[in-house]
């Protein structure tokens, strides 16, 4: 059904296209759909094949019944014919310590941890960059502003080395896994073998689009060829997302295996193994986080170039580039807490045991650390936005609002940081009169956290909105131009009151109902953001700029806010990778395939933090190399011009 629908849809698109270029673009889209189609094929092929096999069996059974005398003979023949046994899915082996190869000088777990994390850092970066490069390119075409196109091109240039690094680490990772965990890989390939081949093939598509997209940038710069170029960009992104989703399915299978019987034997349906309970939550969470992370990394690049810039033009360019990257990072950051909540909820739904291990057991304190890190990220993001006011000419009208915003943000953070289980000395225990704190205890529960995080998001958006209007003045005497701001203030106040009221109300409800209240809270947040964004458009429908935006007029410390954002993000990604993997505890594939290697134990938080720090240091060294490469090329180019 799906396939048919897609074909008819494609036909329709093709018939609507008058020029050959459109046809080419559509054909490209079709080409890209092939992996997707083949997925559909896999999906439907299993039942089809099965029913075919059943039909054959039924016929045989019927034949046997018809000629019972012939049956024993037929059976005997079957026995003879058997010959070499056919391959069949195997149950996971019960491994012992001696089944894990030891390579002298390497700690198996640490090596795989290092390589996997580095692969993930680069993979996430090169997945995210083409997405927003493509969007910026389209923005450039729509607004006819050449600057966007140049910036998109420069982002792509920065990411080019990243592609080969991501691929190299990917190759290294698969070799490391085969070297250190051969039985585990045998089991995984027994299930995902077919998909792995498609995965490898998709790299050809990825490389094709990557090189044509990047090297064709100047050639295909206007008219119809630009549209082809955008088509290539779409192809690049589709291939990238496909690759991410396929490799996600292996990780989510290890956490929440599906498509298996009780003893862990694969049932033959690859789609069932891929489409596990946690696959889509992880897809969404990673996709959104990748965009935020990719944006923050390019923001750091722009920040560095800004600090190095010698001319005002250069400064202005990199300031603008840093701001755009930052903006992308924030777009990714704002929905991230919700994607995270969804993932956690699905983990609880999948296995209460896994959920309690995650939130209530040994890792409970990790989430305090996470809260601190997210606090640092949100604060530095807001700080950068406040610093941006220096670019505008009318910002003095709004700067009085920054301090109240800061106070509310910090207050909400403190609520968000407050741990559920307080660590107190015995003196404090005596003073408090028991282990339960009458005030802080109330902040430790989910009702408070949800309220706080919604406040943070709304206020971060408010910071952005203030900056956005700081250089404008509304003209005209329409309703919106006159009263729009008052309506917006009313909207913010009502929205925040509603979030707070819902939060307080939820204390009086039983726990099962309480969780449901986070939905109206999130909805309120979204309504406030979307509605005031639309109102901004109406208010400034007719407006004048208060002088030119002073790009490049940014203090040095604002760029350090960008670096804080980037480092915080990268480090946090490494930490959350640790916990996502660690909640499997001593299992390769949770509940099915036990890890009996010497590295099966769960490492402590300080140990993981140390490992993550070292990984991030190595990553930064490689990123410097990655940023340095295009500069090397640029130097040659500029010396040629002179």
């Amino acid at each position: 059904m799906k396939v048919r629908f897609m074909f008819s849809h494609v036909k329709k698109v093709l018939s609507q296209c008058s020029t050959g270029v459109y046809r080419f673009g559509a054909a490209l889209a079709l080409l890209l759909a092939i992996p997707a189609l083949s997925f559909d094929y896999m999906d439907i092929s299993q039942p089809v094949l099965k029913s075919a096999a059943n039909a054959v069996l039924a016929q045989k059974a019927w034949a046997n019944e018809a000629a019972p005398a012939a049956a024993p003979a037929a059976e005997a023949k079957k026995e003879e014919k058997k010959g070499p046994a056919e391959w069949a899915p195997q149950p996971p082996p019960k491994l012992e310590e001696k089944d894990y190869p030891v390579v002298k000088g390497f700690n198996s777990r640490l090596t795989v941890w290092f390589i996997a994390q580095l692969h993930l850092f680069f993979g996430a970066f090169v997945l995210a960059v083409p997405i927003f490069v493509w969007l910026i390119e389209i923005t450039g075409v729509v607004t006819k502003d050449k600057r966007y196109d140049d910036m998109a091109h420069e982002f792509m240039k920065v990411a080019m080395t990243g592609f080969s690094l991501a691929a190299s680490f990917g190759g290294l990772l698969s070799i490391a896994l085969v070297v250190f965990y051969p039985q585990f890989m045998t089991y995984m390939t027994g299930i995902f073998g077919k998909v792995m081949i498609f995965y490898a093939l998709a790299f050809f598509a990825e490389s094709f689009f990557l090189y044509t997209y990047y090297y064709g940038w100047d050639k295909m710069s206007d008219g119809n060829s630009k549209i082809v170029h955008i088509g290539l960009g779409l192809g690049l992104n589709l291939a990238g997302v496909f690759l991410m989703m396929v490799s996600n399915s292996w990780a989510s299978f290890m956490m929440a295996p599906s498509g298996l019987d009780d003893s862990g034997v694969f049932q033959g349906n690859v789609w069932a193994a891929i489409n596990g309970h946690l696959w889509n939550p992880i897809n969404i969470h990673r996709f959104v986080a990748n965009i935020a992370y990719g944006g923050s990394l390019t923001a750091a690049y722009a920040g560095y170039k800004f600090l190095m810039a010698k001319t005002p033009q250069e400064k202005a360019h990199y300031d603008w580039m840093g701001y755009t990257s930052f903006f992308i990072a924030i777009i990714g950051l704002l929905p991230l807490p919700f994607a995270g909540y969804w993932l956690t909820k699905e983990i609880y739904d999948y296995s209460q045991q896994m959920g309690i291990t995650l939130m209530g057991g040994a890792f409970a304190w990790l989430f305090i650390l996470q809260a601190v890190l997210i606090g640092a990220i949100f604060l530095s993001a807001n700080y950068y936005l406040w610093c941006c006011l220096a670019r505008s000419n009318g910002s003095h009208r709004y700067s009085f609002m920054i301090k109240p915003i800061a106070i509310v943000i910090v207050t909400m953070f403190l609520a968000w940081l407050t741990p559920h289980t307080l660590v107190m000395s015995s003196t404090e225990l005596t003073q408090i009169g028991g282990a339960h704190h009458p005030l802080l205890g109330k902040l430790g529960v989910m009702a408070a956290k949800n309220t706080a995080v919604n406040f943070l998001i709304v206020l971060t958006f408010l910071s952005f909105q203030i900056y956005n209007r700081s250089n404008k003045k509304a003209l005209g005497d329409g309703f919106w131009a006159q009263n729009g701001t008052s309506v917006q203030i009313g909207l913010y106040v009502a929205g925040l009151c509603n979030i707070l009221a819902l939060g307080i109300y939820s204390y009086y409800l039983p726990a099962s109902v309480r969780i449901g209240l986070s939905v109206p809270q999130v909805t309120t947040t979204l309504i406030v953001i979307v509605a005031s964004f639309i109102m901004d458009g109406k208010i400034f429908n007719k407006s004048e700029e208060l002088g030119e935006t002073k790009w490049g007029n940014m203090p040095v410390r604002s760029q350090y806010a960008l670096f804080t954002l980037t480092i915080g993000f990268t480090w946090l990604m490494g930490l959350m990778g640790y916990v996502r993997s660690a909640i499997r505890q001593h299992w390769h594939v949770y509940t099915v395939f036990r890890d009996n290697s010497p590295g099966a134990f769960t490492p402590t938080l300080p140990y993981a933090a140390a490992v993550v720090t070292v990984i991030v240091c190595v990553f930064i060294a490689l990123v410097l190399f990655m940023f340095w490469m295009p500069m090397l090329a640029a130097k040659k180019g500029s010396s040629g011009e002179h």
Partner: protein
Amino acid sequence: MEGNKGNSELGKILVYGLLIMLAFAGYAKFGIPLVIPEAPPVEEKITGAMTKDQFVAMGDKIFHGKGTCTLCHSPVGGRAPVLDAVGPRSSERIKDPRYKGKAKTGEEYIRESMMEPSTYVVAGFGKPGTNDTVSPMPQINKGAIGLSDVEINAVISYLQKSGGVEVTVPLPTGAAPAAPAGGAEAAAAPKPATTAEEAFNKYGCVTCHVVPGIAEGGDMGPNLTKLAKEAGSRKPGMSGQAYIIESISTPNAYVVKGFEPDMMPSDFAEKITMSEMNLIVNALLGKK
């Protein structure tokens, strides 16, 4: 000159980044109380020579460790009923009008609750929205916990003992299979012997010993036809049954005079199934 400026700027940025990361890692190390996650659970080894108290103690260990029961069944979280009195309560439960399961005794009720948790859900502990018809508890003979039948019996014996009622589950010296019911292992392992004669042949006992019921046998090891009388007095304070089981699982624990130690293989304990061990012990003790 320009290069120098760039380098010092870069150096500053790198030092700043490093400081931030060290602050993160330092907070993880010094700002947060150290929690050491529990080591992976060790699979319980069940030996034939197990007393009732040892069996109950093993159940206790599984209940608080590998079985992960206390994750939910504890007074702290209120996620599941506290099981301190499940022993006496279980026999009341099967008389409950809401009870629809097959259990006839308290023991069967507990076992059923562990293997099919949704058969009877204690009021207030069902999955939200199911009106106490579906239990959030996993089947503990499957999945991550995956207790074997013997381990389940051990847990039941612990629950009964701690609830103050009589322990009714069979001890593992019975015909309970030792190996967990993993499809792989059952398929791969050869079929367990069904008679004592088969068992003696399967493990090659007759190569070295003369055993009751089989005429021919070797003389590398002691003649076992008279063991029924001697076993009980070999080691003071040890029953004949316990002595035989010990001699099979750890042959060097007692070496009969006139024979060398280290002659007999020491890995029988890992190969012989419970039922086979039972057959062998009974045959050697002259019981049928």
